[in-house]
């Protein structure tokens, strides 16, 4: 084009229109369906998969490890060591979901006959489902499961190279995954696990963890029970003990029961650790919601009416004041997607149309605007009156 030519040119619109039509005219008539970027997204996040139990083994006297493979075989989706999976358990007319940290390593999921494992201790954590897994589940049983959820994993652009994991009881599972991945050479960090147990003859995954001990993986068992002959560390995971195993720059990952979190908050505070170096796993469903600050005790024995709107359809079901909305829905067999069951991930985002709920203050991971419009994460919301909610159709 001649410089300044456009000043007199009035044919531009026709020209670009012709160019457009010409481009279409000369284009291929064959449909192109490939969406490789979408395919990678789907390989990482395929949604719920049909999984079959292929192996069950003792993880301790009181815990079992269950191995799952994809029905029909093949690779399982990639995930990060430390993440959890969500398993669905149909129980009578109820449909109950639970998150379990994956105790196997990501590289094991990516083999041709890939697998993931969870390790579940009897009568710990969420009670009856744990017992159900220990007592009733057998090889060949199938489940629906969502693999690779949660934010509890090593992030090289955020975390220190030296990691001290503070594990209590069955809270060892995400660290077992990390240790396996480090030992395999596919996760670049130095991992020291301070693993608190009560007694030396009931340590979940002990034999398997001890086998992973190596240049970059160290497991330090810390016993709180009274065992005079125990040669190793004793007592609780105190500030002093934590300091002993720390490097100058260390990231701390913490997973265990709620009571351990309260204790460790105090101990870690003594160590003057920058906030960015401490990562707590979410602690799951509150054991006893009435213990949390601000819980309206007058409600605690009530059972309310919960009206559940899905599309044009409405159900009315009972909901106990001390159980989350998710539990009420699951009892009634009304499907709801859940993830962390700790108020964090938002899978169970729900609109409260009327009535009031108590939100567990330690489990409030909602967006600001959601709070303004009455949205709750149903796993962390407890009815304090008759309530009407709208949830997605599952």
């Amino acid at each position, binding site marked *: *084009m001649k410089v300044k030519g456009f000043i007199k040119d009035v044919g531009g619109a026709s020209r670009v229109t012709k160019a457009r039509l010409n481009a279409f005219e000369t284009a291929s008539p064959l*449909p192109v369906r490939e969406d490789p970027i979408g*395919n990678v997204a789907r390989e990482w996040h395929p949604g719920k998969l049909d999984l079959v139990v292929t192996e069950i083994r003792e993880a301790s006297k009181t815990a079992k490890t269950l191995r799952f493979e994809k029905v029909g075989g093949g690779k399982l989706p990639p995930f990060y060591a430390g993440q959890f999976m969500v398993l669905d358990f149909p129980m009578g007319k109820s449909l109950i979901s639970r998150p379990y940290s994956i105790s196997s390593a990501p590289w094991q999921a990516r083999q041709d006959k890939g697998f993931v494992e969870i390790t579940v201790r009897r009568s710990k954590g969420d009670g009856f489902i744990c017992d159900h897994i220990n007592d009733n589940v057998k090889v060949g049983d199938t489940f629906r499961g969502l693999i690779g959820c949660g934010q509890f994993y090593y992030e090289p652009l955020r975390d220190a190279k030296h990691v001290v994991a503070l594990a209590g009881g069955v809270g060892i599972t995400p660290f077992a995954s990390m240790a396996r991945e480090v030992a395999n050479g596919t996760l670049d960090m130095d991992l020291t696990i301070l693993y608190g147990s009560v007694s030396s003859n009931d340590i979940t995954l002990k034999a398997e963890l001890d086998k992973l001990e190596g240049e970059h993986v160290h497991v330090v068992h810390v016993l709180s029970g009274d065992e005079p002959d125990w040669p190793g560390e004793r007592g609780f995971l105190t500030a002093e003990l934590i300091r002993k195993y720390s490097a100058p720059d260390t990231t701390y990952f913490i997973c265990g029961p709620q009571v351990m979190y309260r204790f460790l908050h105090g101990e870690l505070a003594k160590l003057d650790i920058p906030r960015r170096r401490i990562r707590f796993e979410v602690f799951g469903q509150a054991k006893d919601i009435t213990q949390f600050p601000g819980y309206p005790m007058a409600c605690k024995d009530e059972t309310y009416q919960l009206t559940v709107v899905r599309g*044009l359809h409405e159900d009315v079901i009972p909901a106990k004041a001390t159980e989350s909305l998710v539990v009420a829905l699951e009892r009634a067999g009304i499907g709801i997607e859940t993830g962390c069951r700790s108020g964090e991930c938002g899978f169970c985002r729900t609109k409260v149309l009327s009535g009031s709920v108590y939100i567990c203050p330690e489990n409030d991971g909602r967006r600001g605007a959601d709070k303004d419009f009455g949205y709750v994460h149903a796993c962390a919301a407890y009815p304090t009156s008759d309530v009407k909610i709208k949830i*997605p159709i599952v």
Partner: protein
Amino acid sequence: MNFYKDHYDVIVVGGALAGLSAALQLADKGKDVLVLERHNLPGGVATSFVRGGIEIEAALHEMMYIGAKDNRQKVGVFFDQLGIDIDWLRVPEAYHASLPGLEVTLHPGMEQFSREVDAAVPGTYEKVKRLMDLCATVYDSVNELSIHPMSKPQMLLKHAAFVKTAGYSTKEVLDTFDLPQKALDLIAPYWIYVGSGFSDLPFTIYAVLMGEYIGNGSYIPRKFSHEMSLKMAEKAEEMGVQIEYRQHVDKILVKDGQACGVRTARGDEISADYVICSAYPNKVYTSMIEPAEAVPAGAIKMVNGRRISLTAFSVILILDKPAEELNIKDYSIFRGTTMDTDKIYDELKGLGPYSYLTCICHNYGNPDATPEGTCSFSITVLPRVDGWKTVTADEYDRVKHQVAKQLIDDMSAYFGVNLLDHVLEIVIETPMTVAHYTGMWNGCIYGYAHTMEDHIVARLQTEEEEKFIGHLEFSGAHQISGDGMGPAVVNGRKAAKNVLDTMAKEAQ
């Protein structure tokens, strides 16, 4: 169980900004509308998420078409008229340009902007102001013509600048101003928001971009773009629109050449007179229409004849110090080792290193964006899909971290502060992240590239011939106005208008 009505006037596939705008517009005219959204919240990428107790903006840098309270622009007017009351915060500057030999912060307002360019590159005021005025004039024409189409002679009379520049690329028009290189560099940074190199970017698009961003400034909602998306969804429901989340539409059902409903992944078949779809025409015409034979050959040729534009890669950091202590001084920083847009566009084909970075520190637009003592800082590259298409699932995490590290290292070097020593939270968003949450074709957020072969003026001219299936309209970045959250609203309203126009025509 009946979750749905037997029939709707319109089904809107996708509850992001375009879909919600379409639904609002239709509900405002009394239509019975169902919105089906695959995610469990509205907005698509116009959303936020919470990490470590801190809410984080997912995508919005600056929203165009809002305007000040006393000078509302088209999207601002739309929201105001419907009573969608968003707490808009004005973005304090246009941008800080960090380019070879230039460290200049520029502000909106044509006069101020031109003065500031002149201060950095003396002697350019008159030319830059003339160029900005041309942009403003063309932009005004685009706005008016999109509402009141007119005949060619009329157009030439009233919108001469628009008509005369329509056939030229941004480079061709800028060349006529004979500006020194540094001034050209200073007025170029926003190009990435429309995503084509200047030799192929229609000047019309550049004019709209500068006319709006420099002319009227930009805005962000106080509670992140989720505030906007949610308030739109809430208003739509209040107006009688049914919105169902977690509903993935697999098929658009076509009978006698007309869309007549959809089928969802869970198997619901829902009937409607019209369907407005946010999925890319590429996906719709190649795998969503049932029966597949209802897709004419021209539709396939059309999508094959267009170029998919940019996707997004962002590293979002929550840092454990206030911004000023980390030498972060601006809301928006465009940093480049060159401002040759054609060269950068070429580089965006690959997987890095990327040399043109777009950074946002939300705290300067919204002091409450993060808790006291912390700040939010994001670094974004808007790559083409080509390179990312070659990444496999097993390579994905390595590539993602490699690119993220390059971006953080580059900006750390610039600030003289190692940002990696301050990371409270890090989120890396990739084209795959976009694909995962929104289902967008190849994770593309920009729709089709604005090019001289796919010119907005031509898009308007050939619009009617490109309706390959009756009663099916599209909304989203792949439509006439292209990418961006402001244009998404415009695209959605356009789809609704097309439906309303067809309804009126067929009623006669």
